[in-house]
């Protein structure tokens, strides 16, 4: 696609529910990154994929968070047993490779846990 696409744009869920956030990177980009941005803060790294494999998942806050990229293109961030503290904007970015200095961000998914 022309740019990084994230769906949904907004998601409201109840505490304790499971959510999936989707990222469709720029076609041909092999590296994909997930970040979380809380209000008034800069993005915080969660995980990145080079191809299908998670090359660095050191930013995932706990085992309720999981991400997959089974075919090396679209990625899904999965959050189990959501908590109110998970409310944030979840940003996805992609770059040509993980050695690229330029990354392109999607518009984000605003997750609200009530």
């Amino acid at each position, binding site marked *: 696609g022309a740019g*990084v696409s994230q769906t949904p744009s907004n998601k409201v869920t109840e505490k304790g529910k499971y959510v999936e956030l989707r990222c469709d990177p720029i076609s041909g980009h092999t590296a994909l*990154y997930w*970040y979380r941005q809380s209000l*008034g*803060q*800069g*993005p*915080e*790294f969660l995980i990145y994929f*080079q191809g299908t494999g998670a*090359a*660095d998942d050191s930013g995932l806050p706990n085992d309720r968070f999981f991400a997959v990229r089974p075919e090396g293109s679209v990625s899904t961030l999965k959050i189990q047993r959501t908590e109110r503290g998970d409310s944030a904007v979840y*940003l996805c*970015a992609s770059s040509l490779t*993980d*050695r690229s*200095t*330029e*990354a*392109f*961000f*999607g*518009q*984000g998914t605003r997750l609200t846990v009530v």
Partner: protein
Amino acid sequence: TQLLEQSPQFLSIQEGENLTVYCNSSSVFSSLQWYRQEPGEGPVLLVTVVTGGEVKKLKRLTFQFGDARKDSSLHITAAQPGDTGLYLCAGAWERGTSGTYKYIFGTGTRLKVLA
């Protein structure tokens, strides 16, 4: 832990004024990027600086990387309302000798330019 602090956090100025935003760290970064983010949108890359002491200009924006590659500044000349947004710096920290980089974002500077 690599941390990037930006100052000021908030800035409200009149159209036509000049301003400087600072990005500081105690860590050395391989490169540093500046992004601008508007409400409801993802960050958009403005520039990447790589060499210590490097200066890059983008129209009315001037970016400088510190000699020791620990800090950077963004200077805007004659600010316009269209410059309003959240400015983020991000430092690239190499993962060991892998040749891959982890980007650490600063806390952001929220700029409002009044007409």
